[in-house]
């Protein structure tokens, strides 16, 4: 801890000679972080090693080592949920990033009404996730949904499609809804990235004889690399932990076809009251997210720092 040199005539004791002000200013932030982030995190970790089952409580909630984790790995439902989570995350990330790139490039071009198009684009992002889930549930409704109406109008289907109760179609439906919601943010981030690429680079590449594809690869994509990396990381983490869209639209059904790991955590904790097991699941989700972040750092940040 920092102290100040003694000033002649200063009669303050040692405690009051410490420069407290910087520590005091960060104290509220530390307190808040500790209360809402670090303490619950430690609690979850501790709970995952204990028999915490409120439905059938065991006095003292004894330490059971890795039993919750072993139980989790034994259950086929865990692997099913992990698979759903991976498919959901990858699909949304790909749709969002590729779609975002396409839309960003369209919005980067000059055309009448560009400002309005950019403003309208943000609307889905502004909607609360719960509203998004509800709206898309109605849109995918078997009987009265606008999706079926449009498909029939375009003669793409003969009869209405059961999006939400068919186990093969429910997950794609949720993926589409989530990607729709995330697309605007991806577009805006990528648009900002595109605008930060200097026009001189394109001119230089042109003079060097690079064709359009080469310019796109070596100037546009190379220039977007840091932004794209960040977007990939954020989208991966957000979607890996996504709950609202899935829960609002399908509740994890039908037949667990949309039950991601986070939805499983909800059921285990708040429906079955198996908090120990849910904590183990939560810890695994945390570890996977940390692993994803490390991979991102290695792939996107480390090369950038080296160069």
């Amino acid at each position, binding site marked *: 801890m920092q102290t100040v040199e003694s000033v002649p005539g200063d009669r303050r004791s040692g405690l009051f000679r410490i420069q407290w*002000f910087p520590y005091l200013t960060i104290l509220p932030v530390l307190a808040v972080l500790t209360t809402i982030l670090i303490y619950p995190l430690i609690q979850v970790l501790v709970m995952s090693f204990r028999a915490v089952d409120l439905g059938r409580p065991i006095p003292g909630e004894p330490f059971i080592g890795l039993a919750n984790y072993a139980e989790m790995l034994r259950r086929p439902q865990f692997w099913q949920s992990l698979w759903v989570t991976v498919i959901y995350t990858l699909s949304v990330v790909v749709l969002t990033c590729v779609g975002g790139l396409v839309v960003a490039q369209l919005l980067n071009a000059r055309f009448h009404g560009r400002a309005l198009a950019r403003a309208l684009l943000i609307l889905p992002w502004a909607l609360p996730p719960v509203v998004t889930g509800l709206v898309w549930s109605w849109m995918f409704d078997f009987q009265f949904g606008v999706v079926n109406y449009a498909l029939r109008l375009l003669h793409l289907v003969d009869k209405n499609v059961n999006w939400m109760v068919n186990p093969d179609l429910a997950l794609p439906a949720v993926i589409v809804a989530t990607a729709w919601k995330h697309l605007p943010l991806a577009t805006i981030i990528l648009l900002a990235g595109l605008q930060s690429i200097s026009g001189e680079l394109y001119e230089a590449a042109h003079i060097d004889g690079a064709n359009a594809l080469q310019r796109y690869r070596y100037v546009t994509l190379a220039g977007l690399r840091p932004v794209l990396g960040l977007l990939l990381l954020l989208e991966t983490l957000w979607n890996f932990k996504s709950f609202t869209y899935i829960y609002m639209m399908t509740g994890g059904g039908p037949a667990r076809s949309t039950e991601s790991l986070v939805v499983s955590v909800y059921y285990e904790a708040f429906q079955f*009251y198996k908090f120990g097991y849910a904590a183990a699941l939560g810890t695994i989700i945390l570890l996977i997210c940390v692993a994803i972040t490390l991979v991102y750092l290695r792939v996107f940040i480390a090369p950038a720092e080296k160069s």
Partner: protein
Amino acid sequence: MADRIGKRRVTRREVLVGLGAAAAAGVLAKARRAAPAVVGAKTKLIYSNYEQKQTGVIAGLSNYWDLAKEAFEKKYPDIEIVQVSVPSSEYWNKLFTEITTGNAADLYKDRLSEVVQFTRMGLLSPLDELCNVKDINANFEDIQKTQIVDGKTYGVAYQGGSHQLVYNKNLLAKGGFKVPTTPEEAYETAKKLTKPGEQWGFVVVTPSVPQLYIDLTQWVVGYNSHWGGNGKVTATADATVAAMEMYKRLVAEGITPVGTPKPQTREMFVAGKIAMMIEGPWFFADPKITPERLAFMGTATLPWANKRSVSSASAFIIPKAAKNKEAAGKFIDFCCSLEWQIKFLEVAKLPGNRKGAFPRSFIDKFPFMAAYDEGAPKAVDSCPSGFEDVFKQLQKYVIDAAGEFMFKNVPVKKALETVQAQMEKELEAGRKKA
């Protein structure tokens, strides 16, 4: 500037003033928390439910609670009822969180099976000393007995009721059909009344929502079975499998509007596109059920030989952490009196659970309620006995299995074997812990 601020010394006086202010704030906060829940001389009875106007519930129920509050406060001028309104979608999670964290209201409405589970978790107050349970247990329908745990009563099933068959008289008459009395008759009638894409013979729930479990269970109990009983799983019993086979046929043959949520099927029924459906009495409290529409609607007990159906009962509970238990007990007694049980029927259009609270005059006025009166004594809880601790698991496993056999071409028996194995494991885990 930053350096100057960074190196500014905090004086002893400033530190002491800061500590003093923090201590004063703490004391004030503590004093505020410790303040008794009274308004003047009145005891504040906090009653949490999802049955008030602002939560979008049918008007009858909220009117009933408003009337009951007014009359109760007149009878007990020293008690004021404060209704806490929670939307039903949030209610169950909030209830659990509040009673486990000790930050509870004085009175809640709860599901019957949950009362038993919460009792075993040590979260509820026994009602024996707080209200007249002797009278309640003696004079209420049998389902009240599920609320007694180890000789003490923890819940009062003030709301009774059952699900019965609601049918379109015109459609049945036009086809020359009688009201079915067996599942096979119901299937045959429904099949003949189905016109693909236009009209459906019988509504069964198909989306993966909690209501699916209730609807599946209607058929299972109608086939003289249940998902279990006395702690044993009977998901693969012949009768259970037969019931689910019939359910699957209704879905596979397009006799039911597949994928349509329950509220929409009600709209379709009102629009004359549905011949039969299973419904509770609350359906008739919907303002859309005008006298003209009511004219083409008929009710009958479910088309099962045993006349059983799943109960729609709800119970009052008083959490252990409640502050005004005595006032809550008085309100329970008040609502369970014959007078207020009859008022429940008249105002909320829902049957109470007290025997004799279904007067003949009411049935004469609303003949469609006769089926609900007749069916009430045969209503069974949706939770099999001995499954209270794992009821939510049972619900989820059954819903998952239904998704498998309805939409993934998995044979019914195989899907139910999964439920059987999962539930046996759950019960075994419970026994080990015990």
